[in-house]
């Protein structure tokens, strides 16, 4: 049985605690999910689609589980998603149900309240029945920061397999108490919840960020044992002088969501070794549910720039541009992954929800990589034009199109945590800064505008991205 069907049997163990007064046992979490589940019976043929605006709170976890348990396909969105983006996604996918914080209910004018519990309400809309493939459990954003309607379709099998695999290599037990540092609507944040609930651990759910005093008080009071971070989290922790903090309960740190430089990996791996902690560098993608590989903590100092080896049940290899497997060590090609956690495919519109398994268990990652003699992998570049800014994936081509649609000639480039927009017309600088800030929700420190004389192009008229830096 999958972990979401299994929660009740863990009875009086604590499943969730907020550190601010709310504590739910596995049995009470099952009760909360059951209660909501009774209202997810769409009066229509076919499986319903629900949108869930998920804060890191017990109501959202219960709602997520209710969807999984009742066979309601659920699209996870950040609780602070911009009203325009939410409206546009709802218009695209026309969900039967929307589960969201009470104060945002008015943003779904077609929704009738069917149930409310705690801070959350369940709205039912007059949406027509929708054909949804029977394997589809979850829809997650791939490039949330550019507001694309593109969602990754994940199956029940994907979720169960990835949670089990992660729980296995992290060695999760009922004694573990991860504290949330990432939103539940983000696949890495969700994978922390899934993998720990699958092993009967206690998740410390908080919306507080590591920049707030409350976070550290909760971590200490709740004796949290692990935390997860994207590269930016680790840079913030460094500024907060994490090495000098007294956190006796903390045993495990995990890192994913983009490349952490080898200097920082070495620094954290050393700190963790000296403090008797484990530091896991990991690699994954929403298209693979969450996780594809991990670097065992005892290899981190030896191979600080490696993404590690495939997770239990997964397989990786390198392919040439013509699709040939490249077997030798240190040959660069596209990184390809096979495993039960490879998602079904994408959806960009409601009709796509009827699609089945497009990928058949194989994911071409778009990352260029090599493998060393010991079987560890190294990402050396990207085939596709994505960067990560503070953990948010930014599709450079998509962003470029959005800015050009405003009548502004531009090219987007840059690297992780530094998005660059190149402009020819210097007078539009402020307009572009504001536009990018509003569209992506990224902080100004994550991007800059540079003025150039002309957009560099090659003979065939294609933009020469390599010449811009």
């Amino acid at each position, binding site marked *: 049985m999958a972990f979401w069907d299994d929660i009740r049997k863990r009875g009086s163990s604590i499943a969730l605690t907020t550190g601010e007064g709310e504590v739910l046992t596995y049995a009470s979490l099952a009760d909360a999910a059951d209660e909501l589940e009774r209202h997810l019976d769409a009066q229509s043929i076919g499986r319903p689609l629900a949108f869930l605006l998920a804060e890191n709170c017990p109501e959202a976890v219960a709602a997520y589980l209710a969807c999984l348990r009742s066979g309601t396909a659920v699209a996870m969105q950040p609780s602070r998603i911009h009203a325009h983006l939410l409206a546009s996604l709802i218009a695209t996918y026309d969900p039967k149900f929307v589960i969201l914080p009470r104060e945002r209910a008015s943003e779904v004018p077609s929704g009738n309240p069917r149930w409310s519990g705690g801070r959350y309400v369940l709205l039912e809309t007059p949406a027509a029945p929708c054909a949804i493939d029977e394997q589809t459990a979850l829809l997650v954003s791939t490039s949330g920061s550019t507001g694309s309607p593109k969602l990754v379709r994940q199956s029940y099998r994907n979720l169960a397999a990835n949670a089990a695999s992660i729980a296995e290599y992290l060695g999760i037990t009922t004694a573990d108490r991860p504290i949330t540092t990432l939103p539940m609507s983000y696949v890495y944040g969700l994978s922390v919840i899934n993998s720990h609930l699958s092993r009967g651990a206690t998740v410390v759910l908080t919306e507080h*960020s590591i*920049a707030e*005093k409350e976070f550290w008080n909760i971590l200490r009071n709740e004796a949290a044992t692990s935390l997860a971070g994207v590269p930016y989290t680790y840079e913030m922790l460094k*500024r907060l002088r994490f090495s000098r903090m007294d956190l006796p309960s903390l045993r495990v740190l995990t890192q994913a969501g983009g490349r952490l430089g080898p200097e920082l990996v070495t620094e954290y791996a050393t700190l963790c070794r000296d403090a008797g902690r484990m530091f896991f560098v990991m690699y994954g993608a929403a298209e693979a549910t969450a996780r594809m590989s991990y670097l065992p903590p005892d290899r981190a100092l030896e191979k600080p720039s490696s993404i590690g080896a495939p997770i239990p049940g997964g397989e990786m290899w390198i392919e040439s541009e013509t699709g040939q497997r490249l077997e030798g060590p240190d040959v660069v090609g596209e990184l390809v992954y096979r495993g039960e956690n490879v998602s079904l495919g994408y959806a960009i519109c409601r009709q796509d929800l009827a699609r089945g398994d497009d990928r058949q268990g194989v994911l071409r990652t778009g990352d260029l990589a090599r493998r060393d003699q010991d079987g560890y992998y190294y990402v050396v570049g990207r085939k596709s034009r994505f960067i990560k800014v503070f953990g948010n994936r930014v599709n450079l081509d998509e962003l470029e199109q959005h800015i050009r649609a405003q009548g502004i000639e531009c090219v987007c480039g840059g690297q992780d945590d530094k998005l660059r927009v190149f402009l020819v017309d210097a007078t539009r600088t402020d307009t572009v800064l504001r536009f990018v800030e509003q569209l992506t929700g990224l902080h100004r420190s*994550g991007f800059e505008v540079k003025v150039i004389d002309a957009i560099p192009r090659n003979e065939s008229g294609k933009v020469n991205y390599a010449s811009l830096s």
Partner: protein
Amino acid sequence: MESLSLTLDQLGDALAYNSVPTWDSVAHMAMMAALESQFDIMLETDDIIDFSSYNKGMQILAKYGVEF
């Protein structure tokens, strides 16, 4: 102000962490870095995580000898 993309009239007693959409954790750390370089100070961890509002921030900066 620039760290949070705020206008002058938004500064004041009511300004606090998460009270405006632009003051999130990323902006918080950028603001701390800007304050450190502007006033040539080195904030302690406790002060960085305690810097939760405009007023609190003023008290903390005063501790470092910053005057307004």
